[in-house]
């Protein structure tokens, strides 16, 4: 084995890999500046309509406080008799499920003949700081489910949760199993300590941060802030990949601005990212202490509204979809948890890409909606 190089030798060896000349660098950077200049002109010509997200035709069918329940207009004459309710997370807005017409989970499910509802959790204000997880699960979510049950005449509906919405859906299915016919979870953290078994560089920041805080820190955070400001929550997500965000808003823009389709997709995603709601404080307190710190959900020790969330009550079929490149919810926090549920019909499906890529990524798009449609369809 050769001895390690000192810095001078290393610099010299590294330089040997570079075949950049003054002329080539000048030409390349001039071309890049030209692309940016053309991109700036394109930006000036964009209309609001082109930037609109979540445009699927829909009707508001219920509301309470800041929460809204929407029914997407079916695109077939006789939709599947059991409706699907989609519950997104509180840390982002529901628009991710219908970001663009050709990258829309909702539209794909509608095209597969389903009757699709989704919840918009809205923008919680200071008055909502005291909302706890149970207020969402046994309150808003339960009311939404009841509305859909009444409208469809079904005892149980198909429930699909995304990330934090997946946790809420899991809790709901355990507390109200008679109202859930099938449960689908996507990029949902279930074993919040899963990352300890399989540590991954660049994944599971939230797990590490939450556990490095004391319970007193969490209490102080919630007491001091009331609700976690949306910008602060968003910033925490961005700081999981700080260097990528340096390139995202600089050198990566060169190619993005040069491609019309990429540009629109990029801007719509930015619009979604920028619309980050505040996070109710009491939900955050429980989320960090009971789940990230004490991992109570998977151990069936979580208590909501005086009732224990026992995962063995989940006897309906469960589909668990996780993203193989998820750094926000590490794979180890989602995968391999079937034995904790009370069902015999448990399916796990990996999709390529990251946490958000599951819903908008090219490869994942080809798997996600078809898998859901086939799975729900096969189970009535």
């Amino acid at each position, binding site marked *: 084995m050769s001895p390690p*190089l000192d810095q001078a030798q290393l610099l010299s060896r590294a330089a040997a890999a570079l075949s950049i000349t003054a002329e080539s660098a000048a030409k390349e950077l001039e071309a890049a500046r030209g692309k940016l200049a053309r991109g700036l002109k394109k930006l000036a010509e964009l209309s609001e309509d082109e930037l609109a997200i979540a445009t699927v035709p829909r009707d508001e069918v219920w509301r309470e406080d800041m929460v809204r329940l929407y029914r997407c207009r079916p695109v077939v004459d006789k939709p599947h008799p059991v409706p699907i309710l989609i519950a997104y997370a509180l840390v982002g807005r529901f628009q991710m499920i219908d970001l663009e017409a050709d990258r829309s989970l909702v539209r794909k499910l509608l095209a597969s003949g389903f009757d699709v509802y989704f919840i918009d959790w809205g923008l919680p204000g*200071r*008055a909502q700081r005291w909302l706890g997880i149970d207020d969402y699960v046994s309150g808003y979510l339960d009311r939404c489910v009841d509305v859909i049950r009444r409208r469809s005449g079904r005892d149980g509906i198909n429930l699909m949760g995304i990330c934090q919405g997946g946790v809420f859906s899991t809790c709901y299915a355990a507390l109200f199993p008679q109202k859930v016919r099938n449960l689908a979870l996507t990029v949902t953290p279930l074993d919040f300590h899963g990352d300890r078994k399989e540590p991954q560089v660049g994944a599971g920041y939230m797990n590490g941060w939450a556990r490095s805080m004391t319970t007193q820190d969490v209490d102080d955070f919630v007491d001091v802030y*009331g609700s976690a400001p949306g910008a602060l929550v968003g910033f925490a997500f961005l700081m999981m990949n700080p260097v990528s965000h340096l390139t995202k808003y600089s050198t990566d823009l060169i190619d993005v601005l040069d491609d019309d389709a990429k540009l629109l997709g990029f801007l719509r995603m930015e619009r979604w990212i*920028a619309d980050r709601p505040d996070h109710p404080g009491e939900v955050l307190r429980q989320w960090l202490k009971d789940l990230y710190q004490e991992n109570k959900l998977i151990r069936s020790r979580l208590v909501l509204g005086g*009732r224990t969330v026992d995962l063995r009550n989940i006897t309906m079929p469960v589909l668990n979809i996780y993203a193989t490149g998820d750094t926000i919810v590490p794979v180890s926090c989602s995968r391999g948890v079937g034995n904790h549920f009370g069902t015999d019909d448990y399916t796990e499906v990996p999709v390529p890409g990251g946490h958000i890529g599951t819903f908008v990524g090219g490869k994942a798009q080809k798997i996600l909606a078809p898998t859901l449609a086939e799975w729900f369809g096969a189970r009535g």
Partner: protein
Amino acid sequence: MSASESNEGSRATYDFWLGLIPQFLGQFGGFAPAGGPGTAVPEDLPFPVDQIAKAAAMTQQSLEGLAQALAPALKTGVPDMLAQWAKASPAFAFTRFGDADTATPQTMLAPWLALMSNSTGTGGALPQAPLQAMSRAWADMASRVTGANTAQMDTAFDRTYGALSDGVGLGPARKLQAAWRDVMNAAVAQQDARAQYAILVQDAFVQGFQRLLTALAAKADAGERVDSVLALIRMWAANTEHAVHETLQSERGLAATAALIRSDLAHRKKTQQMATILADQFDMASRRELDEAFREIQALKRELRASDAANSDDAPAGGRAPLRKSTSAKRRRRPDPAIDAGRDDA
């Protein structure tokens, strides 16, 4: 919360990332001044397109500066370009290139730290600095003059004149002064935590540059070549990102992050205490008191929900949620909101 309020926080986040662009691209050219004005940013663009346009214009300008800086370095060969780059790389300069501009890491990290301060609502880091400096200088001066620290002085002063002050109605002012002192102490602790965090980030950037050199050397050994400046920047980013992850996910990184959060919270808490004293003095409801009203409203809503559930046929698994003792189990079922009247054909 209105859309504009929501955008306010997001704009602060964009300000942070965009503020780093000149430093980020500047480091590859040894921090030469940015190039000419570039293409003008179109006006009246919707949010966040306006931010992306700003980012594109800043990148364009920085690339021009980079081209100007690289030209002379590349005339004398690639090693000079790398050496120039290494000089600009945080702390790497100390170990290998003694004549580097040591202000570089601070310049690069300043907006980072400022945003952490802004995003947690404690005000900008930079504007606070003079106040903290004043506070510290005051404390230092007091110690030198009396041989005691400010807390001891205050205690002695309070014993002597405190009751008299209260007697003539200066109690709140004394409380306010004590609260202000607490805020300043918390601010100093906050700056210390930020400095520790910044050192950690610097370390990660140093490691990132080292990794880049190692990766390039491996390419050279394999007979591969990098012929693009932008590809080289992407390589730097990938290697540095990995180093940042390793550093911030380490025990030390997590502890520094927790300390940073803790110090921000302590500072905010002390500031709130000061605001509470002021609110009390001017007979205004404090935010905490409003929060208590919200808490009671939420408790009543829960009670109502539990009452509804008690009258419902759909009992949850694990039993019904307990009702508060004051709750009547026979409370009238709440009617569905009018909008619920819609039918499937809506």
